[in-house]
């Protein structure tokens, strides 16, 4: 007699901490106790340090580099210049965007902070002294920091190496400073609709240059073992496998002899996708010296030289009928790429997914052209907490909607609602060619408007306006609306690759004899909590508690090949691979269970953590029992062990979406704004861990707040970086961060194995528009149509001044 009651399915399900559970982050114990292991924590025997001599000027010929004083300094071992790298073919390197980039200045410098020489020494102190002793003679050239001026006839030519090339990686070039023109959509059809439209709104929307500024800067430790020929590099890499392949291609070291390890990473936000000169120089220096070399940049290096984000000048025209039905969208973007085209986009998309710029709206015809331009600024153009150029696209359309609403004299909430893609239109093919997988925009929008009591907010706003007009208050109230559609989960191998590497991802699972497991993925967490959430996906798929599943990422010798973590691709791609690998495990487990229970495979059904004989619930085998059996039973026709691997090529992108609303109070005299309310409704499909989603939304909103209200990489006309420290580069503290209200709807992705869409970047995409629209909305009664971000104190003050609101 077995008088122990079998727990119910529900009880067993809850014991797994699977999908939908707010499981606490398993990473936090080590991070909150200072037990993380970051690149700068790695110390190897005999390790030397390296650092750069950087250009103090934005554009100059290099007349001479004198390294003798530095080399004479005790403790300095080597100083590398382009001349040293040239014989190895490493003085330039390919970028992810089909361009090439100087590793060390080859005859000239093109931006302030550019790497000129690499000093290697005993410790950081000797290296810093060595850096100060390298003498570089510069012959300064005219500087251009404005992409429109860069394309003028007599603009200084930046890239003399390709000045005569009429053809670039993405088609014809029309000027030595022109990189590419990328077009999408129906140009003639759009022009015709605009010409014949009842109403057209025309506006230039600038999304300024900013920077991801992760808490941990970029760095690496390169170690060339000359005995076995193996190169190991620990680095802040968001895509370790891609780095391995690129390193092999450019160094000629066979790929099996390169091991790339991404240890704990302190935030990436796109900044750690690209390959930087520091990595190349550390590797070369390790090969030259035969000992490990550490290079870790400081904050100023990071802000000045590693990948920036945005810097898009987006000229838009949007047409509509008099009653507010949108008929067409036109956009021409001038994209400032800096000195080298080092954007990190899928190869075929030099402007990323900017052609998601029709947003959440059913727009019959659209046309987009993007011109990439070189300027004397740092290279980059990465997706800062968004999918490739999606924040730019979303900000563009959300501003154009507001500008159109002004022109129509219509409430912009109503205008949005009138033009949303309807639930029954999904899957929806946009005018610019994307197939939106699923969504219920009206449901989300109505829920959001009701949650904030939109009607009442407009009444409050009108009252505040009366107080202002009667001189009783100097404050205005703004209501910022935003509905966004992201396009994430790059992506289908048929159209997404990076340097020819298809953007699939992978998961490999090994079940141990006692029923616990290890899973390895091609992605790498930078704080997202993969070890927590991927274990939850698996727990639900294979019936092993999440706490019994170890997650490993980031070591290319052990993890399966994948394209890494950025563009919210981990859940849509690697998460799918995880579920699919789990299903392979379960399929084999079913065969083993059938053998053990002496029934046919088809006579079994899955029940949370076990296979049960249909119609005989007392006959079952748990995953734990099956796992042990896979190691100790000779099962005819079945290999021992319980392992599976899945390489997942997603059939489509996923399209997370959401409705964000911000209420702001603005003092027209000081330009100081106070955020009164932020409401963020996200639909990221199936929700894996609601607590982590909420955390992601808080973090993304805070970055969105920073970007829209003050964060920028500013240059003066000489190309000097004006925001090179955290004094001037705005990163909000708890003090500047408002309270956030989060909410959700749940519309699963129909093509993803568990219906999840990704969420980490949505709040940045939706948030920037909400904050910026609130500023615009406050000044709407006085005729403001467009004011560029960031909306810091003086720029907001300038809006008020230009509108005549100061006495």
């Amino acid at each position, binding site marked *: 007699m077995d008088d122990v009651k079998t727990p119910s399915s529900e009880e067993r399900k809850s014991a797994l901490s699977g999908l939908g559970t707010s499981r606490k982050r398993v990473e936090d114990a080590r991070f909150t106790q200072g037990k993380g292991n970051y690149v700068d924590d790695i110390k190897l025997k005999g390790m030397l340090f390296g650092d750069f001599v950087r250009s103090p000027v934005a554009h100059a010929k290099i007349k001479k580099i004198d390294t003798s004083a530095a080399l004479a300094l005790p403790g300095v071992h080597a100083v590398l210049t382009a001349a040293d790298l040239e014989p190895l073919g490493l003085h330039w390197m390919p970028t992810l965007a089909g361009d090439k980039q100087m590793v060390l200045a080859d005859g000239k410098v093109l931006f302030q902070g550019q790497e000129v020489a690499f000093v290697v020494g005993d410790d950081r102190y000797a290296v810093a002294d060595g850096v100060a002793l390298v003498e570089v003679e510069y012959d300064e050239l005219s500087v251009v920091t404005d992409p429109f001026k860069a394309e003028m006839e007599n603009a200084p030519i930046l890239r003399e190496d390709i000045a005569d090339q009429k053809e670039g990686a993405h088609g014809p070039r029309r000027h030595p400073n022109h990189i590419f023109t990328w077009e999408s959509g129906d140009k003639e059809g759009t022009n015709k609709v605009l010409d014949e439209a009842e109403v057209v709104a025309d506006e230039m929307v600038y999304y300024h240059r900013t920077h991801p500024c992760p808490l941990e800067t970029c760095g690496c430790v390169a170690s060339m073992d000359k005995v076995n020929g193996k190169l190991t590099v620990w680095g802040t890499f968001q895509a370790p496998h891609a780095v391995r392949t690129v390193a092999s291609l450019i160094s000629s070291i066979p790929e099996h002899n390169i091991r790339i390890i991404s240890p704990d990473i302190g935030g990436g936000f796109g900044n750690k996708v690209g390959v930087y000169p520091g990595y190349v120089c550390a590797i070369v220096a390790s090969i030259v010296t035969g000992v490990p070399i550490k290079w870790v940049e*400081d904050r100023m290096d990071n802000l000045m030289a590693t990948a920036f984000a945005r810097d898009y000048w987006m000229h838009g025209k949007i047409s509509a009928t008099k009653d507010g039905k949108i008929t067409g969208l036109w956009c021409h973007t001038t994209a400032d790429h800096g000195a080298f085209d080092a954007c990190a986009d899928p190869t075929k998309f030099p402007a990323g997914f900017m052609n998601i710029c029709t947003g959440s709206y059913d727009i019959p015809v659209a046309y987009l052209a993007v011109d990439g331009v070189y300027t004397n600024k740092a290279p980059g153009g990465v997706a800062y907490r968004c999918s490739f150029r999606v924040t730019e696209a979303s900000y563009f359309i959300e501003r154009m909607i507001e500008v159109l609403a002004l022109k129509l004299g219509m409430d912009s909430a109503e205008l949005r609602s009138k033009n949303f893609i309807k639930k029954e239109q999904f899957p929806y093919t946009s005018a610019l060619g994307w197939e939106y997988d699923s969504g219920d925009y009206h449901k989300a929008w109505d829920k959001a408007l009701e949650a904030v009591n939109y009607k009442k907010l407009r009444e409050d706003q009108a009252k505040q306006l009366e107080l202002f007009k009667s001189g009783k208050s100097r404050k205005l109230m703004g209501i910022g609306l935003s509905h966004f559609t992201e396009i994430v989960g790059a992506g289908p191998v048929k159209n997404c690759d990076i340097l020819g590497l298809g953007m699939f991802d992978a998961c490999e699972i090994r079940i141990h004899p006692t029923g616990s497991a290890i899973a390895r993925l091609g992605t790498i967490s930078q704080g997202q909590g993969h070890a927590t959430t991927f274990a939850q996906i698996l727990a639900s798929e294979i019936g092993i508690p999440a706490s019994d599943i170890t997650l490993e990422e980031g070591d290319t010798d052990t993890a399966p090949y994948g394209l890494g973590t950025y563009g919210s691709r981990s859940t849509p791609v690697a998460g799918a691979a995880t579920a699919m690998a789990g299903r392979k495990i379960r399929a084999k487990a079913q065969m083993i269970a059938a053998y053990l229970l002496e029934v046919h495979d088809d006579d079994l059904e899955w029940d949370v953590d076990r296979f049960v004989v249909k119609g005989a619930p007392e006959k079952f085998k748990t995953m734990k029992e099956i796992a042990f059996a896979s190691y100790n039973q000779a099962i005819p026709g079945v290999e021992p062990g319980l392992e599976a691997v899945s390489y997942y090529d997603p059939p489509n992108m996923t399209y997370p979406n959401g409705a964000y609303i911000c209420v702001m109070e603005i003092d027209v005299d000081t330009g100081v704004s106070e955020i009164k309310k932020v409401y963020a409704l996200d639909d990221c499909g199936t929700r894996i861990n609601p607590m982590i989603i909420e955390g992601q939304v808080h973090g993304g909103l805070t970055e969105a707040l920073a970007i829209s209200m003050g964060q920028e990489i500013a240059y003066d006309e000489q190309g000097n970086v004006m925001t090179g420290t955290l004094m001037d580069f705005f990163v909000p503290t708890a003090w500047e961060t408002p309270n956030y209200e989060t909410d959700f709807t749940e519309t699963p992705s129909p093509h993803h194995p568990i219906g999840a869409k990704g969420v980490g970047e949505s709040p940045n995409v939706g948030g920037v528009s909400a904050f910026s629209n609130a500023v615009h909305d406050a000044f709407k009664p006085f005729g403001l149509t467009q004011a560029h971000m960031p909306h810091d*104190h003086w720029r907001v*003050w*300038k809006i008020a001044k230009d509108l005549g609101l100061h006495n």
Partner: protein
Amino acid sequence: MIPSAFSFYKPDNLQKAINLIADFGDEGRVIAGGHSLIPVMKQRLTDIKHLIDLSAINELKGIKIKGSSISIGAMTTQVELITNAELFKVAPVIREASLQIADPQVRNLGTIGGNVANGDPANDMPGLMQLLDATYTINGKNGVREIKAREFYEGAYFTAREDDEILVSISFNSPIGGYAYEKQKRKIGDYATAAAGVILSVDNGVCSSASIALTNLSDTPIYCSDAVSMLIGKQIDDSLLSEVTKSCVEQSDPVADQRGPVEFKKYVAGIVVNKALNRAFDRS
């Protein structure tokens, strides 16, 4: 961010510090809280061969109050200025201003002496010392001397202190009347876009004494003498306060930076002065 090499000294009494600085001349520098000095050393914007840490010198620390006369040792930290209850009773404007300096971590180490002696026009304490008409006591190999805060600042980072002198204490009389220190900044930890301090005493609506000072609106802190003359002996009303504000703004001479252009800073100067005047008046 590594400074060039320097030798480090931590004398335990003032005389030793004075001797060291006298020996080193312009190759030596004293360090108090270090929040201004260390960043410029790390950026190698200054080359200091000998660094003399004053933190072990007890005679430079502490707040002494005798009746209406107040003396504060140069190495007294900002957090002590905020938490000292006796000081708050006799000069509450110090707490109000100190709470607006940087953030708690900075204030735990930042000192009043370092803040006033560095000559950085962005620092809040030099403006506050104009407001209080404080006197700085300076000691060096040639002996002790006193200098008025209002005569101390010559230009950005240039002061009346010689390289071989150490600012040892700050003294002033308990201010009478209402007070306010108003500062606009972009974020926690930032220097002022514009800041203003006001002390105001009023008898039957008539201003009997006043002081007004500005921070980060010129290359030195500003004592607004013209504006003060306009106030004293006058009936205080909105129109007078707005004239006084105008006079203060006229005395300001800010430079453009990432906080904004000159025109904006002058406008905000008017706003902070007016707010400070009104708050001080309400408290008078």
